[in-house]
């Protein structure tokens, strides 16, 4: 197996120490960081997403794989930036105001990175104003909003409204979290709903592909 194949396997199996080891080895072998991402990280996470969709793995294994990818990414990210490599699409993600739960949001962020999005993670308990400011600063193609508590769902409504009102009409908003439903998504005028981290990748790709045809931001 090549180093990239080994790295890819370590990530999809969630072996974070191996992931770090093989990522370092790939760097040492002078493989360009963008190529490491494209040929190891992206296929590994695509495989994880596929297996998740086929019910071959569940959230725990997905979390473990995502952590392994993050390990590899911490080594690669500074090199990607140094090499001036930026992914084609940018996404902003955060947990809405009033909600501190971020494990689900972090998983989606990693899955998106694994699908070669540039992801700006605003963290948890993010106010509508902060989302708007980040949208203006980063001009993302996509904004992801997460809420775990039924009581913080109203904050999602406020955030969607604030982003729309700020004039960022082209940006696609995708929402998710335990209490969220497709119906809620339609009610609050978000562009997409993802019931889990696996479908969050599909939804993101679908929305940015549509957006790219509509009107690039």
């Amino acid at each position, binding site marked *: 197996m090549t180093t990239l194949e080994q790295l890819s396997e370590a990530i999809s199996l969630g072996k974070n120490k191996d992931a770090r080891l093989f990522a370092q080895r790939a760097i040492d072998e002078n493989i360009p960081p963008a190529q490491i991402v494209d040929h190891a990280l992206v296929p590994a996470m695509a495989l994880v997403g596929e297996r998740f969709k086929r*019910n071959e*793995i*569940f*959230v*725990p*294994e997905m*979390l*473990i794989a995502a*952590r392994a990818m993050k390990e590899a990414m911490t080594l690669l990210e500074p090199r990607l930036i140094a090499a001036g490599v930026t992914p084609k699409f940018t996404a902003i993600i955060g947990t809405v*105001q*009033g*909600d*501190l*739960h*971020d*494990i689900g949001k*972090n998983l989606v962020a990693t899955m998106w990175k694994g699908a070669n999005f540039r992801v700006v993670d605003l963290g*948890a*308990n993010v106010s509508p104003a902060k989302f708007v400011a980040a949208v203006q600063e980063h001009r993302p193609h996509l904004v992801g909003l997460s809420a*775990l*508590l*039924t*009581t*913080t769902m109203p*904050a999602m409504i406020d955030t969607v409204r604030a982003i729309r009102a700020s004039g960022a009409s082209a940006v696609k908003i995708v929402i998710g979290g*335990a209490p969220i439903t497709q119906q809620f998504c339609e009610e609050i005028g978000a562009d997409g709903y993802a019931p889990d981290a696996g479908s969050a990748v599909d939804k993101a790709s679908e929305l940015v592909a549509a957006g790219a045809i509509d009107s690039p931001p």
Partner: protein
Amino acid sequence: MKEAEIIVRWPDGAPERRLPAGRVRSDSLATRFMQAGRPLNTRCGQRGNCAGCTVELLAGTFQQRDGAVISARAEIKACQGNVPPGTQALLAAPARSLAVHRPQVVTTFKLGVTAAQQPLVPVTPGVCDHGLAIDVGTTTVVVALVDLLTGRIVREESAFNRQIELGDDVLTRIQLAGLAQQREALRHSIVDETLTPLIWQACAFAGIPFERIAGAVVAGNTTMLHLLTGTDPTAMGVAPFRASFIHHRVMTAGELQLGVLPAGAPVHLLPGISAYVGADLVAGCACTGLLNATGPSLLVDIGTNGEILLWHGGRLLVTATAAGPAFEGGRLSRGTRAVAGAVAHVEFGRHGFPPRLRTIPGSNIVGLCGSAYVDFLAQARSSGLLAASGRWDLAIWRVLPAAHRCEGADGRGVRLAPASDATIITERDVAELLQAKAAIAAGIQTLLRRAGLTPPDVQRLYLAGGFGLHLDVSHAIACGLLPGFTAAQIEVVGNTSLGGAWLALVDRSVVAEMANLGATAAIVELNREPGFEDTFIDRMMLP
């Protein structure tokens, strides 16, 4: 003549207990059981037509209604006579004869402290000398009628919190209560539909008129106390999770609109610590004696929110961890609360399958409750059926007897009882359980790490609440729910919320201790703890 002295041997190796005599002389042995709060299954209405109330007479005699006297050992229908007054008898009550406990509520608690006999509420012997200790849980509510002259619990009544019909969990109810009309509906539901009938029953069964109730003490989580008093809990639903009141509060029965009690009777609401660590946990600290421990001690209450309290070096660290509803049966394909018909224990035999199941009596199998899943995780892992990842080891799964295997839209599953689809466990269920147990385990570990401790440093881990009652502690350790601990460190303490309410009621010095506790507690927000997520992921796999 005095009623007979009756000692009962309870099922499942529970300790023998004297059957307290009711205020009114019992007309049958079955009535005596009912008066003692342990009703037998008298489904034919004590007519002797069924064998529901059959108990075993191990020593003593039993006089039937027709005058015939039966001597030990014999099987007797408890509704068809009584143990003669002035005599003694030893009985065994098999599980199948105990009436449907719907819901099964934990009303017992272990007391780790001594209590002074100085009631919190003013007592006039013979006139106004009883009190109520009340635990308002999100799911279940218990009212204990206490004789304040002796401190003895005379009668306990329990039921589901009727607010469940309006909203299943705390957050749904917080959200509902944002609207004044719904808030009033929730208040009405707990005061008029839940507490009032329970108080009524407790007093009626014990033969105590309401006028003799001198006052009450209420423990419960912060949300329940808000809803009981009609207070808007909205600010507790979103960060920074602020409670409108958290201190010890004395109201009157009239103010709470508890019309069944004398209007002026004081009702003490116990103090809490924060929106998510409420008076129920503070009561638990007092009841278990956690604060008197000489070494680091933990109080853990496993529910949708797992609450964890660490007492160490004169300081209390508290946290709540989002375990989700899995251990209460939520989000699992065959999950249920601990109700009649729930499988509570799973015991793998020497060859694994078929496992022996123990079900809460009163119904056919309706599903599996949290303790059964914990049993399963531990034994399926140790037998190799489950890999560390929570997936079936297919080599072993494939050789299970066909009736124990199932495969469908939910993926591959295991059927614990070949005849019952209500006993199926799927890999998806296991994945949910892994996340729930990881949340609790990581919560405990993070709190210990904050204090610079590891599990072996902990002198005692008190496991409170309904989940703890059925839990096989060694299986909880083995499946990684309480990792790194030994069974000897863990003590299952029952309903310590009720216990703390009782303690505060009979010993007036306790409320002040509870109030001090809130002041010394430091709240740890797990999601803001560096390393929590990593620990959570580490704890996800089966050991």
